[in-house]
């Protein structure tokens, strides 16, 4: 097995509900558990797909990995570094991308790339070289001076990806990267993810699209109700009727 780059140990995350949310959800508890004591590892150079329905806990898990949310309990290690005490250092190593995360409409891709490069203190000559390469790879050079507000959803997603790579992170965390994209844009994003893997990057991708898992996954984790219901290699997941069957069998079992 490759080197372990991330170790997730018994992380638990719950959110306090307002009285209104409680009423709306018809719950007696004033808390909802989003992630329920899960543990898993991520290895260098792999693509780990986290598969689950909406509200299963995928995004919360990724947000905890991306340092945006703190677990109520449990630990996350990047190599031997504990996330809770090395947050700034870890932010320099990761890229986080979600469709929930948007770019300011008032600026162009070119400006935003330079701005975020400067925030990560990337030397100017390296930033220029990197921008040229990534813009070409994603086809952004054709619309780099157009304001984000005037771009299509697919173009915006490409710009978001480019900007998340300004500091050349070795770990990429993508939440539903092809959500809302047309088939051409989705294909470009999938090609990009595979290229990044070839370059030795580690990718964690959440999705509810089985076809995406088929195309990119090295390993698969299935999540339901904040718990891991399956973990294994893509090859293992394919056995006994395939990923889709495996997912729905376990999902239905959890509902019984």
């Amino acid at each position, binding site marked *: 097995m490759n080197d372990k780059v991330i170790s997730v140990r018994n992380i638990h995350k719950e959110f*306090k509900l307002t009285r*209104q949310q409680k009423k709306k959800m018809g719950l007696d508890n004033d808390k909802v558990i989003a992630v329920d004591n899960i543990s898993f590892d991520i290895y260098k150079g792999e693509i780990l797909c986290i598969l689950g329905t909406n509200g299963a806990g995928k995004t919360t898990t990724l*947000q905890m990995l*991306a*340092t*945006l*949310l*703190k677990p109520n309990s449990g630990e996350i290690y990047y190599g031997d570094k504990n996330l809770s005490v090395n947050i*700034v*250092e870890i*932010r*320099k190593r990761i890229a*986080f991308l*979600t469709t*929930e*995360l*948007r*770019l*300011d*409409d008032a600026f162009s891709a070119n400006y935003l790339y330079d701005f*975020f490069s400067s*925030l*990560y203190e990337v030397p100017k000559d390296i930033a220029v070289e990197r921008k040229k390469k990534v813009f070409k790879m994603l086809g952004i050079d054709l619309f780099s001076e157009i304001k984000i507000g005037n771009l299509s959803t697919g173009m915006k997603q490409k710009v978001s990806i480019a*900007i998340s790579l300004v500091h050349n992170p070795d770990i990429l965390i993508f939440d539903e990267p092809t959500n809302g994209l047309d088939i051409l844009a989705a294909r470009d994003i999938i090609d990009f993810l595979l290229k990044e893997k070839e370059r030795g990057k580690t990718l964690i991708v959440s999705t509810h699209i089985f076809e995406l898992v088929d195309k990119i996954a090295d390993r698969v984790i299935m999540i339901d109700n904040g718990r891991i219901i399956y973990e294994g290699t893509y090859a293992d997941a394919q056995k006994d009727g395939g990923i889709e069957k495996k997912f729905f069998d376990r999902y239905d079992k959890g509902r019984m």
Partner: protein
Amino acid sequence: MISMAIKIALKELKKYWGNKKIIFSTLLLPGLVIFMVYSILGIISEKQANNAEFSTAYLVDVPDSFEEKVLQTPISVQKAAREESSDIKQRIIDQDKSILVIFDEMFTEQVLMGDEPNVEVYYNSVVSSSVLSYNQVIQLLSDYKDEYCRSFTINQDSNIHDIVKNEDRMGKNISSMLPMLIVTLVFSACMAVSAESYAGEKERKTLVKLLATPIDRKSIVLGKSLSLGILALVSGLSSFIGAIFSLPKLYAFKGKNILEIYQGGHVALIILDIFSLAILLVTIMSLISARSNTVKEATTTLSPFGGVAMLIGMTSIMQSEPAQSILCYLVPIYNNVQALYGILIFDFSGRDYIVMVCINLFYTALFGYILANMLSDEKIMYS
């Protein structure tokens, strides 16, 4: 149609009642703010009325019967010779808290003979004690006339009785309007840019990208506050420049502008005052913006405070001199108004000004620190 309209109205009201913040800021806050502000203004007015200061009245050729009447008032009386009039007038011009009452020579005799002698009353409209004493003396003269069926005139000569330097008069008039204008306009400018600052980014989901970077939260707050402060300062300066050209016209000071009265140093102090106000306001407003989930929510919460700012700005209209107590310079916005007022009426206190700037910067740093911690609070940022 009516039933459909009622259904829609009920749905809208349900939406409204479901948002506690909106209910608080539209139903409770305006009333609470008005109650507090008017109560405070009432206390200030009462205190001012109780502490009203009268001038010394210099009386020339005063009939004994009138002198007795003046002695029954809080005005202190001093008899003066006609030759001293010029000196006394100069003291009044120099804001010496005095008034001068000159009765015509042989006043009583002239009255008895049926002539109409004149009484001249000189005062300085910039000095409130002088104005107060002037009004009191005019009232006494009027009563004196009625009481004794005497026939005389008051200020019926060709002299100007409000003896005040032109720049003092201009400064006084401007000082009563400009602080309110500046505070109100800077508040509006700050609100326009600050309400959007965090709530807007939360709404558009653009803030997360910044929060995912290794940048220290304090740098984000400082960067945002600085840019918002500069925008608000520019807006405040725009109001100030507008006032420079318009207020002299309003007060009919022909051919004059404020820069002929105030020196470069005064203007620099005014600019720093506006900046310290703007940077503090944007930081406080950014705090409210960060706590709000939408720009609308932030604007609704901030709006009632616009009235408060305007009313605090209006305190300069009721004043005769800037606040003397150092404690007044610890109260944000009010301290800016007092410092501005002091500069504009040439009653500038370096100590009070420095306290105002330092305390505003302290509050800015304090609120900025709270805001930086809020940016790390996932309940606020990802609610």
